[in-house]
């Protein structure tokens, strides 16, 4: 088997009373786009900081390219291209200076690639970073993250607060990294549509735990969205064994089921309701069913 790009085992991290990561185990396979989803405060950024070696694992182990990122920062960080949500860049530099500065850390830096991106994104290399717009700042950070063709492209909420055009520019670079050379991308996002389009593998975390992990195809195959029609209006939410969630009003209700479809079908029949439609659930629907507030789920809540 190919070596995991990232392998995290049993990592727990507590900030005060808050368990940001709770015995979390997680891995990233090479050559794919891996989407990391979770509500705000689920632990995504804390997880990414462990991958970068910015946080030391207090318990459990973190391996990136088989190495401990805290003990081998040069070897590990040299192979990662990272775009943080805050896009923290040296404000006093000009764009071309940042390119030269980043290059110094990355022997594989490709000048023609960075020049091409500066041109595509219509950036002025002479511009000072502090004077850039939000979108230009993100694109500048993106160039610094991709122009050395990293083995792992790591993006923390890359679309956060950006317009559709800049979001597309960023995702296109992810496609390019993976399509051309079979490199790996890991990105966190709360935009479920984006994750569903872009990911081969998805990990959903909630309150520091992994609640769902697998190839997007398997996750989608394993979750169905059912539309139900009851003979009478339901004044309270009906209970259906095998359903992860149930939302609706009157006699029209929608359920999301996982795997336990037969059990749910029997329960629905027993209630006298009719199933008017069965289809695959979208990632958005799966996410809401798994970690939403509507119904108690199997995870602690």
């Amino acid at each position, binding site marked *: 088997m190919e070596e995991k790009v990232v392998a995290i085992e049993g990592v727990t991290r507590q900030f005060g009373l808050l368990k940001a990561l709770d015995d979390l185990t997680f891995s990233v396979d090479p050559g794919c*786009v891996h989407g990391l989803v979770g509500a705000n405060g689920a632990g995504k950024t804390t997880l990414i900081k462990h991958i970068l070696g910015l946080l030391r694992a207090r318990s459990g182990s973190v391996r990136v390219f088989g190495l401990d990122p805290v003990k081998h920062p040069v070897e590990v960080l040299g192979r990662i291209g990272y775009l943080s949500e805050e896009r923290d860049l040296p404000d006093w530099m000009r764009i071309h200076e940042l390119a030269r500065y980043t290059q110094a850390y990355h022997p594989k830096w490709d000048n023609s690639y960075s020049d091409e991106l500066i041109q595509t994104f219509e950036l002025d290399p002479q511009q000072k970073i502090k004077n850039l717009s939000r979108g230009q700042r993100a694109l500048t950070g993106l160039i610094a993250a991709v122009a050395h063709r990293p083995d792992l492209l790591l993006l923390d909420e890359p679309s956060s607060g950006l317009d559709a055009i800049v979001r597309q520019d960023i995702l296109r670079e992810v496609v390019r990294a993976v*399509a051309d050379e079979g490199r790996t991308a890991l990105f966190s996002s709360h935009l479920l*549509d984006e994750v569903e389009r872009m*990911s081969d593998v998805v990990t959903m975390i909630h309150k520091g735990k992994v609640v769902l992990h697998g190839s997007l195809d398997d996750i989608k195959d394993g979750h169905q969205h059912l539309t139900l029609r009851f003979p009478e209006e339901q004044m309270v939410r009906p209970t259906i064994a095998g359903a992860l969630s149930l939302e609706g009003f009157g006699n029209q209700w929608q359920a999301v089921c996982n795997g336990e479809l037969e059990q749910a079908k029997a329960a629905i029949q027993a209630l006298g309701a009719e199933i008017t439609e069965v289809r695959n659930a*979208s990632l958005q629907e799966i996410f809401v069913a798994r970690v939403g507030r509507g119904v108690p789920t199997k995870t602690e809540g």
Partner: protein
Amino acid sequence: MNIQISLKDGVPIYRQIVNQVKYMVASGQLTSGMEVPPIRVLAEQLLVTPNTVVKAYRELETEGVVYKRRGAGTFISENGSPLKAAEQKRILTERADTLLTEAQQMGYSLDDITTLLNERAAVLGKAKNKSAKEHG
């Protein structure tokens, strides 16, 4: 290739690509020998992971809709015609199923639908004759 991805109805993205390419072959928008976009190009255009396009093309190849020419790209197959007929039938069957389901929900009988279809065929036939005369 104008492919539209929708995340609303839950259909996996690779399946949407497969279905739309087959539809374009069946409707004559893609003809044998035409090249389909390289994986990276289509992935960038649709903003989907390249592996999804790989999976869609592999399935289309297995079904004989496209073939790969080493180092040259992916092309629409020559022997598209039997598949084309089957695909046309499949598309129409799907439409018929939708029509029947909706009609049933509205309380239409099969006879009602047949009458409606005949009526519509007559109307469309007239419109076609008229425009043919005007242009002729």
